């Protein structure tokens, strides 16, 4: 256990144990590199919270500052492994969410305008926050779900 402790694993796990830090790391891992301002938009966290998360992540060796104001997953092996794991989790979460909307769109009654609007709004939020990742991982998924909903 001492070896694990000295290798910094405990610090990493402790850092990632905080939900707001996880959120920032997850988005950073998916988008490769991003500025603090962009992270605020993508995570809907305050500037202060993003700043705190970045400080903790940097201290734990999980991220590094690339250029002025831009952060990326650090180039060391464990940071890369954690980054990949978080990216996969995000993609799996997106697949689940898109499938839920797709299935709901499938069973929606044509005259249920409220439900249709709710699903379209949910899709809009996903497109806003994760559109680039969705398009890369699930090409045309946003388009097909939208067309299915708008055609009802």
């Amino acid at each position: 256990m001492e070896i694990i402790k000295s290798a910094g694993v405990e610090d990493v796990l402790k850092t990632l144990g905080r939900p707001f830090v996880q959120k920032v790391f997850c988005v950073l891992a998916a988008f490769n590199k991003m500025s603090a301002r962009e992270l605020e938009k993508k995570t809907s966290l305050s500037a202060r919270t993003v700043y705190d998360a970045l400080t903790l992540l940097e201290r734990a060796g999980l991220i590094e500052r690339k250029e002025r104001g831009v952060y990326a997953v650090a180039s060391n092996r464990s940071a890369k492994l954690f980054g990949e794991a978080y990216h996969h989790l995000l993609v799996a979460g997106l697949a689940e969410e898109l499938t839920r909307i797709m299935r709901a769109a499938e069973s929606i009654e044509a005259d249920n305008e409220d439900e249709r609007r709710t699903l379209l709004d949910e899709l809009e939020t996903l497109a806003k926050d994760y559109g680039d990742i969705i398009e890369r991982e699930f090409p045309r998924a946003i388009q097909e779900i939208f067309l299915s909903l708008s055609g009802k």
Partner: protein
Amino acid sequence: MRIDSIAKKTYREALSAIREVLGVQVQECELFIVEKRELPQIKPSLGERPHIMNFLRGFYEAEWNTIFVVSGYEDDFQTILHEALHSNSCLHPSNSPFWIREGLTETFTEHVLLRKGLSYSGNLLLKEELNFWRGMFKKHREKIIEAYFSKNLKKCYTILAEVTGISHLEKKAFTEI
């Protein structure tokens, strides 16, 4: 909105590929290039949802028998092929469930692309639906083609019910299959 020679060329190549690979007669419809800012005029719900709009590539509007290709995707063969298939089928969003309409269209899109030696960027969200229709297509190729390209919706569903062994499948969600 405008007519575009590159998109027209891509579209004609797509129609020709459908004819060649699937052996069916296909009709040409109208095709326009549309700028993103013009999309809310065609799909009003996009006016309030600009982020969805960013990810539209093209679509077929059955009411106007027209394919709209979003500017920038004039030579996107997969998108235009997919919409060309929709335009020749009686299955549309207003009369068919997503899993049947998109499942079959994706199955044909994939089949035509691969037979033409082109790559297919899979729709991973429809993985199970695609597997279902791929299996059906493998076993009942001619019947599935006949159903999809039929001009008669009732006939289309009758054939699909016959090959799948599922009655009233158009009223069922994929999770019930």
